[in-house]
C-alpha cells in the first residue's frame, strides 16, 4: 500500500494506492494518523482512486479516521471510491455516515 499526502489550506488529502487488506492496514493507519497529527486539518479527504482491492479491514481504517476527525471537530470525505470498495462500504453502512464524492 502506497500512501501519499498533500495539504492545501485546511484540507489534508491522503491518497491510497494498492490493496487495502488486513496485511496493509496497520502501515496505512500509521501513515494516515501521522499525516493527520502533523496537519491537524479541518477537512480530511481520503482518495481511494488507486485502491485495487479492499475488504472489511478498510472499514476499520475509515472508521478510525472518522473518529479522529470528529474529535478534531473536522470533516471526513471519501473520493474516487471504486465499485468493489464501494460495495464493501455499502454492506457496512458506511455510505450513510461518510460522504463519498468524485
Amino acid at each position, binding site marked *: 500500500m502506497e500512501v501519499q499526502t498533500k495539504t492545501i489550506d485546511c484540507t489534508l488529502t491522503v491518497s491510497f494506492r494498492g*490493496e487495502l*487488506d*488486513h*496485511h496493509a*492496514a*496497520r502501515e496505512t*493507519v500509521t501513515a494516515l494518523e501521522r499525516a493527520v497529527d502533523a496537519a491537524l486539518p479541518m477537512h480530511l479527504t481520503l482518495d481511494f482512486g488507486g485502491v485495487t*482491492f479492499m*475488504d*472489511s*479491514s478498510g*472499514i*476499520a481504517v475509515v*472508521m*478510525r479516521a472518522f473518529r479522529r476527525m470528529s474529535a478534531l471537530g473536522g470533516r471526513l470525505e471519501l473520493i474516487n471510491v471504486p*465499485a*468493489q470498495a464501494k*460495495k*464493501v462500504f455499502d*454492506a*457496512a453502512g458506511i455510505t450513510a455516515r461518510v460522504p463519498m464524492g468524485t
Partner: protein
Amino acid sequence: MKVKPNNYIALEFLSRSVNEGFARTAAAAFATQLDPTLDELGDIKTAVSEAVTNAIVHAYPDALGKISLRASVFDGNVLEIVVRDWGCGIADVDKAREPLYTTGGEERSGMGFTIMESFMDALIVRSKPGKGTVVTMKRRIAQRSGRK
C-alpha cells in the same frame, strides 16, 4: 450421498498476513473458468479475503498455524469455497456472525461474516473451541449468453 465436484483446487498455507492476497487471487483465478463478471469476481475475492483474514487474525492469535483453502466447481455453475483452520475455534457462532461483533478491537470492524453472507449465496460456519473452524461459502455464477 456426497456430490463430487467437476473440478477443484486445494491450497495449504501458513497464517502469515502476506498470504491473504495470494489466497484471494488464487481463488479468483480458479473461478474464472465459470466465466464470471468483474463484479462477481470482486465479490468472490472479497468473501475469500474475509474468511482467510479471520483464520489468520482470530484462529491463531499469537502463533502461526495451518490454513487450507479448497475451491470447487459443481454442476450448475456453482463455486464452493472452503476455508479451514485448526485454531482456537468460536464458542458462539451465532453471536460471531452478528454485524459489528468483534473480539479484534479497533483494528477490526466486525463486518467480515456479514460481508461473506451478503456477497455469497450461502455461508456455513462450523466451529469447535480448541479444534478449529470450517467456513463454507457457495456462489452460483449466472450463465449469460453473449457475454464476453
